[in-house]
């Protein structure tokens, strides 16, 4: 065991994992998080806490993770390299580990031009790849990035993102291989709508034996409306929504229900794919629907590790 987290244990046991995501509030209101915890408890193996997603200031991911621990849900703390240099990151994650956080998702982070402080200075001292390696070295070598040694290391189960829908497509499997090389333990992918493209990526990863070296959790984002689908397709860099999906949303009598249905269908497909070890359901500001999706996908009850 690298960290001994619930998520790690479930994956190690060869069971199909389910994670979800909680967005912290744009305030100091801890109750928002507690309420969302209530919705998810018992339905997911762990929940990600986003780190100032889309560069909009929110309650700190590590602080939120601590609230999750209090509420009895295992957190996956997200950590971007946008806002902190290597000093701050190492320091924050030592703190997180000390609080009992056992999973970290290493990310580059959305560029701040999208957020509510576009005039801010970004950091990008290291990139997400280097973040993985740095945390692995801290955990396995008990070394800081600079090479200095420590006595108690942070035991963290290391995650990273993969996006089969970004370009250049040919490089996406190479990049997965690089992340594995850097020391990643699990991958959560970008939301999947274009299943054939995802399969193409996965098949190549399978062929190269990569899926045996890392756990892959397929990302699923339920759609709320045809408009949202079109927005994601046209405006969100690195995401793809096929026209068939948009048409289904457009033609549905109850668009929200259709979105849930599509998500469930996608999970059904993911369950049967070689090399997929779980799903990551990102119901953005729609956490209440996660239990339904998990249930309808036949993923209940969640195993105890």
């Amino acid at each position, binding site marked *: 065991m690298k960290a001994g987290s619930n998520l790690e244990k479930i994956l190690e046991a060869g069971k199909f994992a389910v994670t979800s995501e909680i967005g912290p509030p744009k305030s100091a209101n801890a109750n928002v998080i507690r309420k969302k915890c209530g919705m998810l408890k018992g339905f997911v193996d762990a929940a990600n806490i986003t780190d100032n997603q889309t560069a909009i200031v929110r309650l700190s991911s590590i602080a939120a993770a601590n609230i999750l621990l209090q509420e009895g849900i295992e957190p996956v703390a997200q950590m971007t390299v946008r806002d902190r240099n290597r000093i701050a990151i190492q320091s924050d994650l030592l703190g997180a580990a000390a609080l009992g956080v056992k999973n970290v998702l290493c990310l580059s982070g959305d560029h701040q031009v999208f957020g509510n402080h576009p005039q801010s200075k970004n950091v990008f001292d290291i990139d997400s790849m280097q973040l993985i390696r740095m945390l692995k070295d801290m955990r396995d070598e008990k070394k800081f990035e600079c090479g200095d040694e420590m006595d108690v290391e942070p035991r963290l189960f290391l995650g990273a993102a993969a996006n089969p829908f970004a370009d250049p497509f040919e490089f996406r499997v190479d990049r997965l291989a690089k992340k594995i090389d850097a020391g990643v333990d699990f991958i959560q992918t970008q939301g999947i709508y274009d299943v054939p493209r995802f399969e193409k990526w996965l098949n190549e990863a399978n062929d190269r034996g990569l899926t045996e070296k890392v756990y892959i959790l397929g990302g699923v984002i339920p759609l709320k409306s045809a408009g949202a689908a079109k927005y994601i397709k046209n405006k969100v*860099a*690195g995401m793809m929504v096929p026209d068939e999906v948009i048409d289904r949303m457009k033609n549905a009598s109850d668009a929200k229900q259709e979105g849930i249905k599509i998500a469930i269908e996608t999970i059904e497909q993911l369950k049967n794919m070689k090399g997929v070890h779980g799903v990551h359901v990102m119901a953005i500001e729609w956490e209440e629907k996660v239990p339904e999706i998990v249930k309808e996908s036949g993923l209940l009850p969640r195993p105890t590790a």
Partner: protein
Amino acid sequence: MIVGDRKPMDEILEMLEPYENILILGCGTCVTVCLSGGEREAAILAGQLRIWGKKEGKNLNIMEHTIQRQCEKEWVDEMRGHVEKADVVLSLACGVGVQLVAEMYEEKAIYPGLNTTFMGYPVVHGTWLENCRGCGNCVLAHTGGVCPITRCAKSLLNGPCGGSQDGKCEISKDTECAWQVIYERLKKKDQLDWMNSYQPPRDWSTAGDGGPRKSVKIEEVID
């Protein structure tokens, strides 16, 4: 070259408000070539200021002069006569030039007329693109001659992030993804190895994060 853009007029007028004898000082190298601070721009700005002065009922004496380079002491020294006639010098040089002029004419009010923007080249006439940040540790040998430090919005070193799509960067559809370009170039040259292997964190101390930089050619310096 060093690229600059003329400062907003409000800011210029605010700087010049207290003065009557104004010297607009053009620079004949980078900012001439990037069409922001050469003889022509100095003349245009001077024309504008004269109209402004007359409109405001001020009795302004606007002088224009352009020297070869404001970043060299000898050139800056040569225009002493012009500077002496002025109460204020509005330099259209890059920040380097403005500082040297300020240093050599400490007693005068020396103000910048430009915002120095970046180092780059003209893609087409009238449009410049930033392509070097002077980080002090060049990686171009590995990246197909495309600088990821400058041209990747996140200065990534290990390939494109998940926001790269259709060759464009996530920050805007007008910005190309540097890593897409790098990938294509390296693929063509069959040199993807570097990009496919893990690149460790950089040493940013050469990039100015280690404090103001200095370059000494020891072979040129007599101690």
